[in-house]
């Protein structure tokens, strides 16, 4: 049942005198900070920077595909464009943005800790990330790479002479940043929960970040060694993946996807955590089936290690093995579906308000469902032979990654923006941007399902003229989508200075992070909080508020 809460009026709120933002000033105080909140913001800045690069590449790709002949850029350049786009978006935007930005900022606040377990390690992982990014920038500026984000051998080891080595090293270094972040989060969640914050009182956000961290720790090292092998292959020709020397290129695929499939869940699980928070808050209800949602996060993390070869169905792996992997892939859709059902049930009979974060959550739920269902289509062996390496796959993963995860990131960013900055974004513009994003997204990527099903292969710079209509639609959609990203960028920046002051708890949410001032103090909680209520306990908040009002008034 949903609960109505009347908090004291937030419109008269003032900014607190002391907060993590004004405890120290100057560039140095940011670059040497050990405060998890500031590190989260450092990550935000860098990942958004990379998002701009990746976005520019995407725009060029779409522009080139406006005409069947691909007149804008040469075929070589086109290869570089989509490679840079993929590498940057996957490894330098989507993997870090949710864990390292929202996770860093929120995990300690949500579990009632003063900081993450290893603040120095946390800062180190930011520097590693930046170092990896520099390698990547070097590779891009000095001519780019054209292997695709998948570094397929022997293409990447023998046939291209672009900057594969520095690109691979960049990802290797940034990978260590993921690993350290994962280690940090797991230890934090295990060891720094406030008194009374039991496992089943934690917000579901924490559960999904816990699952994400497991993936970081166990999967990332495998791609690290794989990239080392690629580099060694290129530099001294050791031959582990080289058929001429007895190596097996398929082994590369196994190792690469052993990481990269779990990595796609790194790119969705945190989003699921955000959606749980937002849906509960704007339905004024406890998430339906808390335990099911919590365990489905862990189940997704575990299952995701058993499905990687669905990226290799047509590459010559054994048919029997393909059967096993196909089955496992369909199983992984089950915990994802559980979540969708539970969010829907949470909204059922809730008192829903349609604020911006909630709109983004709707967008997430719808688009992720489409993405997931097409994933199941791809997982069936017969379908996959027809659809693999076509735009259908491109549409599939953009539905989950952009439609799903980026929507979730936007939901989270808007939802916690008042906590991060202490100010509100302009609500009407927010809703408008959410709508534009949704429309633009579907316009861009739905045609790609069709054009892929009709047989347009991915990663080519030109295409048969009969596909032009759908491609033009897609490019048009991309421009709408771009507005959907630029608009929030503008008004969020604007709101940092001119936004309405938010007050501690503008959404009237019961999470611990909302019980402290916004923006929070450097030490988060002046006194260690004691948790004596369940997660999403709106009753508790209502009663608590009432008694507060009485004692204060």
């Amino acid at each position, binding site marked *: 049942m949903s609960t109505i809460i009347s908090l004291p009026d937030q419109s008269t709120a003032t900014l607190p005198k002391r907060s993590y933002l004004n405890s120290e000033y100057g560039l140095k105080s940011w670059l040497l900070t050990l405060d998890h909140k500031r590190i989260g913001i450092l990550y935000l800045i860098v990942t958004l920077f990379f998002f701009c690069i990746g976005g520019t590449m995407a725009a060029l790709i779409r522009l080139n595909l406006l005409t069947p002949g691909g007149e804008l850029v040469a075929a070589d350049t086109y290869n570089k464009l989509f490679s840079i786009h993929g590498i940057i978006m996957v490894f330098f935007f989507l993997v870090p943005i949710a864990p390292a930005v929202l996770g860093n900022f929120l995990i300690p606040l949500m579990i009632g800790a003063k900081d993450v377990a290893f603040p120095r390690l946390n800062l180190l992982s930011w520097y590693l990330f930046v170092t990896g990014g520099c390698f990547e920038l070097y590779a891009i500026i000095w001519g780019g790479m054209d292997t695709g984000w998948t570094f397929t051998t022997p293409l990447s080891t023998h046939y291209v002479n672009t900057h594969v080595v520095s690109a691979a090293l960049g990802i290797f270094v940034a990978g260590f940043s993921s690993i350290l972040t994962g280690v940090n989060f797991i230890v934090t969640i295990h060891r720094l929960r406030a008194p009374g914050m039991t496992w089943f009182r934690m917000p579901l956000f924490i559960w999904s970040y816990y699952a994400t961290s497991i993936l970081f720790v166990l999967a990332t090292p495998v791609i690290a060694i794989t990239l080392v092998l690629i580099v060694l292959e290129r530099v001294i*020709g050791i031959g582990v993946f080289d058929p001429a020397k007895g190596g097996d290129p398929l082994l590369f695929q196994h190792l690469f996807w052993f990481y990269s499939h779990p990595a796609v869940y790194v790119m969705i699980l945190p989003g699921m955590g955000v959606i749980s928070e937002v849906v509960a808050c704007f339905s004024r209800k406890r998430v339906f089936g808390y335990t099911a949602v919590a365990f489905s996060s862990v189940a997704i993390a575990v299952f995701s290690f058993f499905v990687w070869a669905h990226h290799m169905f047509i590459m010559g792996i054994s048919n029997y093995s393909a059967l096993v992997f196909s089955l496992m892939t369909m199983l992984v859709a089950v915990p994802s579906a559980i979540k969708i059902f539970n969010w829907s049930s949470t909204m059922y009979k809730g008192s829903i308000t349609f604020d911006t974060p909630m709109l983004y959550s709707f967008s997430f739920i719808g688009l992720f469902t489409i993405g997931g269902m097409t994933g199941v289509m791809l997982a069936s062996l017969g379908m996959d032979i027809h659809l693999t390496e076509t735009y259908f796959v491109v549409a599939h993963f953009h539905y989950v990654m952009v439609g799903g995860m980026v929507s979730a990131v936007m939901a989270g960013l808007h939802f916690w923006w008042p906590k991060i900055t202490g100010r509100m974004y302009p609500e009407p513009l927010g809703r408008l941007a959410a709508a534009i994003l949704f429309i633009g997204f579907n316009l861009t990527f739905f045609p790609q399902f069709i054009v892929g099903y009709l047989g347009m292969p991915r990663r080519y710079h030109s295409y048969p003229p009969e596909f032009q209509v759908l491609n033009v639609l897609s490019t048009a959609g991309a421009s709408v989508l771009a507005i959907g990203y630029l608009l929030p960028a503008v008004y969020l920046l604007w709101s940092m200075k001119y936004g309405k002051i938010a007050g501690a708890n503008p959404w009237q949410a019961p999470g611990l992070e909302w019980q402290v001032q916004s923006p929070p103090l450097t030490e988060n909680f002046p006194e260690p909080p004691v948790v004596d209520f369940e997660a999403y306990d709106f009753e508790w908040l209502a009663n608590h508020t009432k008694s507060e009002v009485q004692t204060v008034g």
Partner: protein
Amino acid sequence: MDSQAIATLPEHGHAEHEHSPHLHHHFATEDQQREASNFGMWLFLLTEIMFFGGMFTAYLIYRNWYYPAFVAGSHWMKIWAGTLNTTVLICSSFTMAMAVYSAETRKRKALLRYLSLTLFLGFVFLGIKAYEWHNEWVEHHVPGLNFSINDFTHVDPRYPLDKPLAPDMAEKTQSYFSLYFLLTGVHALHMLVGVSILLFLIFNAWKGAYTTGHMTFIENFGLYWHFVDIIWIFLFPLLYLISRHQ
């Protein structure tokens, strides 16, 4: 402004418990801090397992594919050197364990002695390994840089019963040596990192650190050192021993 009222309470909870100089502000007790960093170290070691895991997988697969080549390749390993190195590493693990013990019982002299011994043994290991690598270089067994299949297409005098490999299979000995250099190389890199940290630890211990009750660092380094030892415990049979007889 209820919640704000809570949050801006004056800070008194802070001075309540006396802080030890090693206790970071976000931990409640020193025990909690120690457990946390221990746990963190283990998680890091998990990533190391997976890191080596990729290479072990490659080894397993290629060994089955190119069995004769792997047998022939491993016959060029010097078993005495491998055995000696295994022994050296086990000794160093023991001295490391004793170093941690000395820190626990707060004996500075003993700590210094055991750490130096560990360092010494680490260097011995690396020395022997370097000697082996040097030999392999001389024998033209380094794939990519200088490799010749000559040794494998002729009968090896030490294994007169071995048949020479067909040129095709002899090429595949490169797979064996690639993996050999990869595995031992990455392992040696870990040893190098370990040795550098050891130098740092000895310096600190000499100044009196770790024997005052705060020894998380040295404990965690011990875990790392033992882990590197474990990797070698597997490398030794896989690379040197299991094909001795085929």
